[in-house]
């Protein structure tokens, strides 16, 4: 009889190994452990056994049942892992297919540059304001210390709309408006389009952008101007950036300077600056004995050309998405 138990164990182990599906597993269970299964048949022989052997044989059968049940559970676990894996495999995708992308919009490169400049000056406490592009001679010239017949008042280079109306030639015109509206101290920056009667070529457009700023207070000095612009330059072009202030002439500032910064081993000219001329402050209703002020006007388009390696200024205005998409 004990041979039959050994055979049951061998056969069941082999059948379990062969079982590939939950159904196979169930068939094995029925054959071995079912009500009419092999183990049940062996159990049925117990009552007819001599009493001396019965207890030992019964115990052996119980051990066999436990062993089979454990083997079945193990096999069931194996099978379910396998089935799940097979189902996942059937869901295989090609991860090298190109992605589906939503549209990504972009700021224009000049706007991006203006935003950067404005952000730096906001960090230095400057307020950003705007002014009209159509200006009067008064605000564009006279209040900037360029009376009629002033040599720097180059009407040849100015677009006129009427006798007294023109397209602003520099955003400093906004400064004169702000000074009339407010009282010191002031820390203002403005940006926008300016116009000049220039023939279009690789470095000239009749429309260009400028960032203009000024600061009025008791005790504002040229040293402050240098500090503010040097801080700006380091923020904009990197901490190693050096600045150069060269004497220059503007009717509305004195002393005046041209600002240049180091960029990739060369000097990049950014614009003009200086201490507001006392006459400009007087015309703005500010007492030049009590207050001093610095002012600066920075080019945007040409420095952006150098900074981004754009060879032709016209590319800014063509809006070729092959270019805009790179920034």
């Amino acid at each position, binding site marked *: 009889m004990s041979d039959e138990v050994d055979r049951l164990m061998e056969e069941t182990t082999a059948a379990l190994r062969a079982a590939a599906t939950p159904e196979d597993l169930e068939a094995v269970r029925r054959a071995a452990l079912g009500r009419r299964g092999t183990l049940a048949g062996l159990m049925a022989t117990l009552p007819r056994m001599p009493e001396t052997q019965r207890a030992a044989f019964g115990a052996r059968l119980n051990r066999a049942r436990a062993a089979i049940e454990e083997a079945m559970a193990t096999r069931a676990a194996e099978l379910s892992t396998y089935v799940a894996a097979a189902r996942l495999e059937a869901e295989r995708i090609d991860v090298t297919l190109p992605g589906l992308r939503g549209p990504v919009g972009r700021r224009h490169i000049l706007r991006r540059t203006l935003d950067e400049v404005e952000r730096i000056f906001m960090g230095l406490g400057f307020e950003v304001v*705007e002014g009209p592009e159509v200006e009067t001679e008064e605000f564009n010239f006279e209040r900037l210390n360029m009376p009629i017949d002033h*040599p720097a008042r180059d009407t040849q280079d100015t*677009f006129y709309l009427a006798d007294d109306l023109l397209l602003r030639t520099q955003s400093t015109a906004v400064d004169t408006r702000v000074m009339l509206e407010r009282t010191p101290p002031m820390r203002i920056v403005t940006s926008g389009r300016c116009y000049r009667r220039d023939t279009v070529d690789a470095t000239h457009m*009749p429309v260009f952008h400028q960032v203009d700023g000024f600061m009025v207070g008791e005790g504002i000095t040229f040293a402050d101007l240098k500090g503010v612009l040097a801080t700006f330059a380091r923020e904009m072009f990197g901490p190693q950036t050096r600045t150069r*202030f060269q004497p220059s002439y503007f009717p509305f500032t004195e002393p005046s300077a041209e600002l240049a910064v180091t960029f990739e081993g060369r000097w990049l000219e950014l614009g003009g600056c200086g201490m507001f001329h006392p006459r400009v402050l007087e015309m703005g209703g500010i007492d030049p004995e009590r207050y001093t002020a610095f002012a600066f006007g920075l080019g945007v388009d040409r420095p952006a050309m150098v900074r981004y390696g754009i060879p032709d200024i016209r590319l800014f205005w063509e809006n070729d998405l092959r270019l805009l998409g790179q920034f």
Partner: protein
Amino acid sequence: MKAPLSWLREYVDVSETPAVLAEQLPMLGLGVESVEQAGDEVVFDLEIASNRPDLLSLIGIAREMAAWRRRDVRLPEDRLEEHDPAASTLTAVQIADAGLCPRYVAHVITGVTVGPSPAWLASRLEAAGVRPINNIVDATNYVMLEWGQPQHAFDLDTLAERRIVVRPAAAGERLVTLDGLERDLDPQILVIADARRPVAVAGIMGGGETEISATTRRVLLEAASFAPAGVRRTSRRLGLRTEASARFERGVDPEGTARAARRCAQLIAELAGGRVLRGGVDAYPRPASRPTIVLRLPRLRRVLGMTVPAADAEAILTRLGIDLRRDGDIIRATPPIGRRDLEREEDLIEEVVRHYGYERIPEALPVETMHQGRRAAKLETEASARDALIRAGLTEACTISLVSVRLLERLGLEDGDPWRNPVPLHNPLTSDHTHLRPCLLPGLLEAARINVSHRREAVHLFEIGRVFARGQTAGIDERRALALALRGPWLTRDRDVTFLHLRGALETLFAELRIGPLEIQPAQRAWLHPYRGGEIVFGGDVVGAAGELHPDVAARFDLPGRTYVAEMTLGGLLERAVTQPRFSGFPRFPAVRRDVAVVAPEALPQSHVESVIREIAGILLESVELFDVYAGPPLAQGRRNLAYTLIFRAPDRTLAGEEVDGVIRRIHEALPERLPVTIRL
């Protein structure tokens, strides 16, 4: 201004190498355009600021170098020998308007022999970029370059009555100038005349009939000062710029005129023989005064943020030729002849710091009340509008604000359209840029055209910028506008954009600015497809239009297929935008959802159906969304099915289904009554 180094050395010692000079001169404000080496000679081409006519002279430049290196300037000696009779016995000068000609000095030199100049002089002139002509003319040019005072030599015997009248030209007068051109003159032009006729355009160019010739024996030498504005205007009008006009335009100090005239008369006598008659004639009706300027050293410190030692300030100003007297912290200064630009304290501060060195000013940061800068509110909302459109997937364009009528005509605008009446430039430069843009669209369509020409299919652009219109009464209206142009595939590669994409972008903008739902009403615009566009209505006003670009307009911009465009003014939207929203809390009671479906004529805008639903549903309605539009069998031709999902919610209780059903019943009754629709149940 071309400055030969050997010539400069006449007036100041220059030991620096050309390379050092080229690097250092800009630190004085003298821009170096080029440095040319020709044989032993080195010539600096300097860029001179418009307020410094004195630097259009070698002595002026020498003064700058002297102040820079604290050296002395050597001025040419006055060795003029004068002979009887007095010049005034032979000639006379009359000035009609001293405002236009403050001073006119004439010398008479008799017995000259006209011939070529000596080599040293001719080569100096050539190095300075002036062509040698003859010894007399060359002497005038030499002294002009030396002192910055232009001069002119007449053949005295060609002048009617041998006298000079400085006056406005009479209408109809003409003059053949030295360049051989006949010039029409008028009373706006100041001329030098003799007793009968104009013989020179004042301050610009002499006339051919009275010029120095091989036979000239007696010379009238002119050294004068003319009003800058007049010379500039005349020079522009005649299209004639000369070395003389360049100097007079910037202002020649009348105080220096006599000195330069004596120097030139002496040089002519030396070069061409001859005798300089005694005295000359000096017409100087109202001698200019030389100002005394007070420089306060504490003010110098206050402006610069740095202390310049008084001794340094004094040394610098003195080398620049300024006479000064220091009294403690106060310096009283009298500028030299030729420095009319020095008028007030700030001018002296600039002189001191220029030569002391801008690089010696420390970098400081202003000590003021700390505060964070910010953008003006309107600029901040403009930035959020821009960001909303960029997040919606559009790319920002930047197009030029100058347009031509030709470009605007491509929009096919009707008579009376305000865009057909753009603001013209008085003085345009090119035919492409004759007017201020009345709208952004043409620029944006040009940008689309350029991209399409590069075979770019997907073009999704917008621009926010200023547009201009003639004002109601006078002046010019300057407004902020927004335009969009969409074409080609967008969200998926295989499907081109539709009107709904355009509308979606605008809806995103409205939602981000929190200014309520976008309203577009069917309407026509010349530039829009007549049945695929409408007006954008905001706060009861038409603020713009949106739709499919009219095929004719698209063809004129070389845009194949369909392009969707919008243009609107932005000011009102930005004013109403809510930039700081508040949290509104989550709903506390459940919602009830119901669908409503109608069959409507295709020509009936769904917005009509929606507005009836909203009106009847009242305050319990939380939202209504059109979720399906269907046309086709089994519906009749020309009709479509519109299906809406309505969400109802009460803020204070759980809504009963029956209550909502009652509302739905009223909607079902109202829709067929008010609109040509049937309810689908």
